[in-house]
């Protein structure tokens, strides 16, 4: 898999390269600002891109804007946005078009297997949302979520992060069938129709969390 990275901090970009190479991924370009990132995407047509939120010159949310621009230029381009802090608003902005998008804390990178897993999910058109974003979204709407059992809430959180039923089952050490049943309960308690697609489920969760019933 070919990766383009937009990261201005050399320590971090070299660390990312090291880490991705150790997992057999190919880093074809490392851009240090938004403009060179867009140029690198044009030149290399990568399978997935990794973008830092804060990029020169102002170190605000250039990364988010660069990611959105790249996806306008190349519809469906998978982008995994990395940040040293998570803002729910940025997540909402990115998820406006949810195919192949990810938003993770940089901390997650050092959990190599999970990170590569998330990267793969994004590359194949899925979603990867940081657990902290999910947790914050969940605390924002406590009443109906309170109606869920603890297990159902765990499953909802994992769903919101973008995991499929099999992964959720193995994480919680339960059967696929049990997960399926729990999800059915969650959707019926939240009044949502169940679907199979990972990112649609995230959307359903987000849509529910963001709008008042």
């Amino acid at each position, binding site marked *: 898999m070919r990766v383009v990275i937009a990261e201005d901090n050399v320590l971090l970009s070299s660390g990312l390269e090291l880490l991705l190479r150790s997992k057999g991924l190919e880093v074809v370009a490392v851009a240090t600002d938004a403009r060179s990132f867009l140029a690198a995407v044009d030149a290399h047509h990568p399978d997935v891109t990794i973008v830092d939120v804060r990029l020169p010159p102002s170190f605000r949310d250039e990364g988010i804007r660069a990611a959105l621009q790249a996806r306008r230029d190349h519809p469906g381009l998978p982008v995994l946005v990395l940040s*040293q802090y998570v803002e729910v608003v940025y997540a909402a902005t990115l998820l406006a078009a949810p195919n192949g998008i990810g938003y993770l*804390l940089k901390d997650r990178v*050092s959990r190599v297997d999970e990170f590569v897993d998330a990267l793969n999910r994004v590359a194949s058109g899925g979603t990867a949302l940081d657990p902290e974003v999910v947790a914050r979204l969940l*605390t924002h709407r406590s009443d109906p979520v309170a109606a869920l059992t603890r297990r159902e809430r765990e499953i909802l959180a994992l769903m919101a992060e973008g995991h499929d039923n099999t992964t959720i089952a193995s994480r919680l050490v339960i059967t696929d069938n049990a997960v399926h049943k729990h999800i059915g309960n969650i959707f019926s308690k939240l009044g949502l129709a169940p679907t199979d697609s990972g990112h649609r489920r995230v959307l359903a969760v987000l849509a529910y969390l963001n709008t008042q019933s």
Partner: protein
Amino acid sequence: MGQRWVRTRRATVYLFTTLGTAVMTVLVLPLLWHPALAAPWARWHRDRAARLRGQPVRSHPILWRWSLRWLPAQVAIGLPAGVLAVLCVGNLLTAVVVIPAWWMFPAGEPPHLFSEVAVTSWGTALVVGLAQLASMAAVAYWVLPLLAALHARVTLAALAPSAAEKLTERVAVLTRTRTGVLEAHGAELRRIERDLHDGTQARLVAIAMRLAVARQALPDGAGAVADLLREAHEGTEEAMTELREVIRTMYPPILADHGLAGALRMVAGRGGIPATVDLGDLGPVPAAVEAVAYFAVTEALTNVAKHSHASGATVAVRRTGDLLSIEVRDDGIGGADERRGTGLTGINRRVQALDGTLTVASPIGGPTEILVELPCG
């Protein structure tokens, strides 16, 4: 003994000068209504009085309105005291001259002592003369220093700020320095946030990544080394989490990215409750105030989402002079209690730290209104 006489001499000189300035004060009174003349005139008197009293000379400015109490006091005490000093010294000198030289005066006009006693013989000259000398010396020795001290004390008191004026002045100074402190503090907050974010945090992430790669590269069964690496890796991750939390509560990164207005617009769009944001022209807001304002709005909206059963909320932020007011209002069930809700307690603590106020109106049945007012300067 010698010191007492020095005091007497200084008091006498002081009172003579006082007589002169008191007379002058009466003569040029109309001119002294002008602050440009009144202030130096008063200052000169204050410094002179302070020197007599052996006190440090103060430098705080003299207010024009103090003249209203100082000028009458200067004349009312200075004139009689000065006249008494002149009379005393005059009579003393008379006695000194008359005692040895009474016989030199023309026979028809003998000198007088105590104003009335005509001196015509050595007997009267010595007895009455020495009596006058002693009594005048006694007055000069004991009474004149007291009068001078009285005048000096009254002058200093009339030309010193009252407790209320001192307080007003102090508040003005504190307000001025506080603005400076807030601005400096804000610049520091931004700098520290950036340093932690771009420096420390980035380094921690880089270390964690390398530790992760090292752990992966380590063959199975590496035992103690694997354990140490795992501990180092997990410790680094904890440090990252803690540092992120420190930065978030100190100066939320979204403020650095978008400013207060931008951050508030974004925060209103993300909660569980639809919130409309109404922002006036906020002008420059110190970073510390921004952080508290942002914290107050996010906490208030979280409270709304959690407890109010509201269908909507409005956030209004206004700047009036140096005051930033933040109002969060919902259409929920009310009953929010500042003493119970930890959210409100947290807001109150941070608001008070900046000299601001929190007002909560939340009758049972609603609606809830939270008003935070923060001074920006």
